[in-house]
């Protein structure tokens, strides 16, 4: 995929997943302001030709909102484990649906990971440099990046 294709595909996948399972609409026109992202999740798609790592960072407010929407409870009723679990599902669905157009049988989806970012160690301005920024209700809500590592040789 060339740059514009992956960007288009990723936008479509994120929108569909958020609208269908998390009852949330996001826009990709929001300007990155270096919002303090609180959670990160990641999934790796591996194949013989290489590996694609999709990484997602979201604000605490956005994470809490989509978690509550997913499991159908008030935001006050959810804990950290619920948030990390929901974010794993989110990145899992992004990876799975991004993976669909890949015809190669050898591409396989890894186990999703999610964790709370150490805010003290977060570098300012790290967001918005590469990848896609998205917003919700006019505010920056998350950032998704995609890294492709090509295999020189050997099995994927």
């Amino acid at each position, binding site marked *: 995929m060339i740059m514009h294709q992956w960007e288009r595909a990723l936008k479509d996948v994120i929108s569909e997943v958020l609208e269908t*399972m998390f009852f949330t609409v996001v826009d990709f026109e929001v300007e990155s302001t270096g919002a303090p992202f609180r959670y990160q999740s990641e999934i790796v798609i591996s194949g013989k030709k290489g590996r694609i790592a999709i990484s997602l960072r979201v604000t605490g407010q956005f994470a809490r909102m989509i978690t509550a929407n997913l499991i159908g409870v008030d935001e006050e009723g959810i804990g950290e484990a619920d948030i990390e679990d929901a974010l794993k599902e989110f990145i899992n669905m992004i990876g*799975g649906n991004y993976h669909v157009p890949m015809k190669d049988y050898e591409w396989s989806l890894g186990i999703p990971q999610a964790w709370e970012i150490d805010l003290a160690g977060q570098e300012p301005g790290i967001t918005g440099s590469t990848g896609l920024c998205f917003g919700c209700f006019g505010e920056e809500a998350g950032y998704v990046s995609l890294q492709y590592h090509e295999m020189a040789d050997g099995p994927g």
Partner: protein
Amino acid sequence: MSYNILVVDDSKSMRMVIRKTLEISGFRIGDYLEASNGREALDLMEGKWIDLILSDIHMPVMDGFEFIKSLKGKAPNCDIPVVFITTEGNKDRLQDLMDCGASGYIRKPFRPEEIFALLSQVMGEFDDNAPMGKSPEGCDF
């Protein structure tokens, strides 16, 4: 008639979503059992009467492929319909699941009506007069 359901998914959130989706769909749930992987599901099923299994594929310890192979490999549980709810998009892998004996699959993200449509088909349109099949001997239910 209500159905005893086993949901197998390592995500607690997804297990909650599936339960709520079934309830919204009008699916009459009897016993509702949950397991976080295939191994746990097999252990949980011993001595229990299950009408339907909804399972994820990508799970730690025992994934969906190993689970269905173990389940379909021996009586008395080999006739229980298994529907996979998964992010897996590779058609070859999904076909492999069907070849292993899956009754169907639904890809995430899903809408409640998709679940209802497939389960209606798998369970005989929730017909109260539909035969339930044979219960395994010695089961306590």
